[in-house]
């Protein structure tokens, strides 16, 4: 398939009688950031590890950067970079020593490895820290070094497996910025994440994975449209007020509001967020209905899952 940097067709990966991947399909357009979204155990990491030649698979076909993963894993390895869930860098060495070591192991030879390390330290804004031990780096710096190490050969395809899990917001922003710059340089990125927000910010297309299967493949907007976009949510103080609350919410909502009697919660999707919030708040105040909480909620991964699978993220078993 021309124009696609990663193509997977019907990938199967079994552990005993458990299917980590059960006919997984994926097509990643060249030069794009593609999000692979799913809860823990959905098969995201398994998929990335199969595509990055770290795991053998039991069925299906996969091509990465035009090379067959099963037949020519070595050729695949020269065209990919991988950033796993941990910053896979040497803690004792300096940032520069890390990049030089990996450069030599990428068979650049000593002198080119040294030059490439300098280039990458500049590109990833690590010049000042280059000669300090990685043990002293912040989480974000470590991640950037990790990204730099996976960019040594300027690979065609970069796999990022939950690159910002466990990072503080500032470090997260740094990593996002680095990823954007890579894509501007022409790299194709396959990004796995549990955060809809992250996929939304970076990816031009998102594949939702559940129980080892792709259950949706869409643009971020298309996906959010399916989930219903933002919604308004009101928690009543008294369960007796729920019908009145539902009526107030129904006036601004796009569809009929959903009432959760147990949690005294009424919610419904809305388009004009602020207008809806002020309208509902005014109505409830005028009718003197006691409100414990009122607000706008962005669709979460949970919402996406609930909508696409009929079950929440918690019910998916751990299988990664």
């Amino acid at each position, binding site marked *: 398939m021309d124009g696609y940097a990663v193509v997977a067709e019907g990938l199967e990966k079994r552990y005993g009688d458990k299917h980590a991947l059960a006919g997984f399909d994926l097509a990643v357009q060249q030069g794009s950031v593609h999000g692979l979204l799913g809860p823990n155990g959905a098969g995201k990491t398994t998929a990335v590890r199969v595509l990055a030649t*770290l795991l053998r698979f039991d069925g299906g076909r996969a091509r990465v950067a035009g090379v067959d993963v099963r037949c020519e894993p070595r050729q695949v390895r020269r065209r990919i970079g991988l950033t796993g869930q941990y910053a896979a860098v040497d803690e004792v060495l300096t940032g520069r020593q890390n990049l030089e070591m990996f450069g030599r*192991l*990428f068979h650049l030879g000593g002198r080119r490895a040294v030059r490439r390390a300098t*280039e990458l330290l500049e590109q990833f804004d690590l010049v000042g820290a280059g000669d300090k031990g990685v043990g002293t780096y912040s989480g974000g710096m470590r991640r950037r070094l990790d990204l730099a190490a996976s960019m040594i050969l300027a690979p065609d395809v970069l796999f990022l497996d939950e690159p910002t899990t466990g990072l503080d917001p500032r470090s997260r922003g740094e990593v996002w910025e680095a990823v954007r710059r890579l894509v501007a340089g022409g790299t194709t990125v396959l990004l796995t994440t549990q955060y809809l927000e992250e996929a939304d910010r970076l990816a031009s297309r998102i594949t939702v994975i559940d129980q080892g299967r792709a259950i949706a493949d869409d643009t971020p907007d298309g996906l959010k449209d399916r989930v219903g976009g933002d919604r308004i949510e009101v928690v009543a103080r008294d369960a007796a007020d729920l019908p009145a609350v539902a009526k107030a919410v129904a006036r601004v909502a796009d569809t009929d509001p959903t009432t959760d009697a147990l949690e005294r919660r009424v919610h419904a999707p809305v388009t004009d967020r602020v207008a809806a919030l002020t309208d509902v708040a005014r109505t409830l105040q005028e009718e003197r209905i006691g409100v414990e909480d009122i607000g706008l909620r962005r669709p979460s991964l949970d919402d996406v899952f609930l909508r696409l699978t009929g079950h929440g993220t918690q019910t998916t078993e751990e299988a990664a």
Partner: protein
Amino acid sequence: MSRTDTVTRADVTDVADLTDLTPGDRHGRAYWAVADCWNVVRRGLTHYQRRPVMIAWQLGFPIISVLLYGYVFGGAMKSPDGGSVRDFLMPGMFAMTMAFGFMNTAIAVVTDASKGVIDRFRSMPMAPSAVVTGRGVNDLIIACSELAILAATAFAMGWRTDTGIVASLAAFGLLLLLRFCLIWVGILLGLLVPNAEAAGGLYVVAFPLTMISSVFVPPSTMPDWLGTIAAWNPISSTAAAARELFGNPVASDGSWIQEHSLLMAVVWPIAVTAVFAPLAVRRFQRLSR
């Protein structure tokens, strides 16, 4: 096709065009197996250059043991055949240090595995064998320096050999052979345990395994059943063989195993390697299951 692809990619990446990123491909697989191994070794040795304290920690235990047993207990302990207790103890200390080395291997392997460094290596176009061979060569180089420092410490305390340079080198060779076979045990354990803390817990196993041997006292001074176990401990064979080759007191009780320590100091490591090397390699390959 690969060449042109890479060059095109390099052209669009703003900085990449400074350096040609085509991997060196003139050499065959055997060349890269050796070159990659050496690059992994270099990384390990740079650790010691960056953190000299690491080597102090690794040597601290055997050196302190040498000093403790040599001076604190040395006076109270009688050498089995009237010679110097220190002369009996030192080869045992060398063997013990080699035996404990598997812990360092295991900890290094599990640290790399749990941090994803091994996965990164495996996702790169380097020779996969270098991950294992690099570790082994690195650990043997460290073992050589450990032996040199221990021997110097022992020499300063009055330990002497009187059998000439060839026999002494043979003794050190047997000690390194013991270390070599335990590299495979260390790699296997490093790939089996979940994290470095768990690997540290292996001391609980390692300590009695080295104590129930002829490292500190002759097995003949132990209860019969324990003495038999101690005599058949591979560490005992290496310690006894080293004593013999150094010309230090051996304290054999005449049993077959103790009379054939030179032979067994070769046979044991080969047997351990024959069992654990395939297991370690298989475990490494199973990472892709």
